[in-house]
């Protein structure tokens, strides 16, 4: 019963907070309206998102977010250096297949997004069976190293968060 009314409690909380931040007014009015949105939107979209992802390790989320933010910062500087100082004929773009140990669709989505936001890599495609990602590297003299870093740095932590 509660599951039917509140299919995604985390989404409800997130939507309420986002509404409060968007309204930029921390009054009872916006809180009530935010809660209303937070209850209605998950309820309406529940048929498209039937499974409720289970988050097992909350402190890990903070660690993951900090690591990703730091990597985004590095990523920007790396890509800027490549754009400005590496001539096109020295560039070694490469495709890398990353086999996935993750099975939750939400976890795979987060991993794909993270890969796109971090140094010189970009998620291009998912295998039809959902067990590998196709990643494009801007400048990768060592494609296997890229794959191992993705698995070790991000996938291991996501596995701890979601599975």
């Amino acid at each position, binding site marked *: 019963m509660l599951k039917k009314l509140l299919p995604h409690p985390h989404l409800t909380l997130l939507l309420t907070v986002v509404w409060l931040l968007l309204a*930029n007014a921390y009054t009872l009015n916006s809180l009530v309206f935010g809660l209303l949105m937070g209850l209605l939107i998950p309820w309406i979209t529940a048929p498209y998102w039937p499974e409720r992802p289970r988050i097992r390790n909350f402190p890990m989320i903070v660690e993951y977010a900090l690591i990703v933010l730091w990597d985004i910062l590095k990523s*920007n500087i790396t*890509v800027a250096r490549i*754009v400005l100082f590496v001539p096109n004929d020295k560039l070694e773009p490469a*495709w890398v297949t990353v086999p996935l140990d993750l099975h939750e669709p939400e976890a795979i989505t987060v991993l794909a997004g993270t890969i796109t*936001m971090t140094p010189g890599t970009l998620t291009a495609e998912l*295998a039809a069976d959902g067990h590998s990602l196709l990643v494009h590297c801007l400048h990768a003299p060592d494609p296997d190293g890229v794959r191992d870093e993705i698995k070790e740095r991000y996938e291991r932590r996501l596995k701890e968060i979601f599975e």
Partner: protein
Amino acid sequence: MELFWEIVIAALLVIGGFFGLVGSFGLVKLPDPMTRLHAPTKAATLGVGAVLIGSMVYFAAFKGNLSLHELMITLFLFLTAPITAHFIAKANILRDWRADRLPPPEGAGDWAIYTPAADTSALELLEVEEADKEAAREAAQAAARVAAEEGGSEADRS
């Protein structure tokens, strides 16, 4: 103190402008569509990010109110940038790359883009609809049968 914050904000704006410029320059300079995708998705994130942090610092230091709108913009940017990049990459693979020039995925299957039936969600919905109709038909038949039997037994009694 005011001067200090002004310098911080100015530095952030310059950093933001610089990375925005590098991102746009990358679009022109890099050799093919797949590599071009890298420049704007990344350089632009820090470019916009630095401008947003500058804006937050400005409102906190000079207007005295904490503005959190910028965090929202950052959040939406981080949500949308990978999705846009993914779709452009998919379109590009479909146009310019053959399956034999890409590394194969692990296991027996192929990449989703070369597997036309990979998206079965629409088919599943159709199946569910069919099953619902079937169930409704059966329920109607069963009800009709029960009604007919009851009618029959009443007719027997009279």
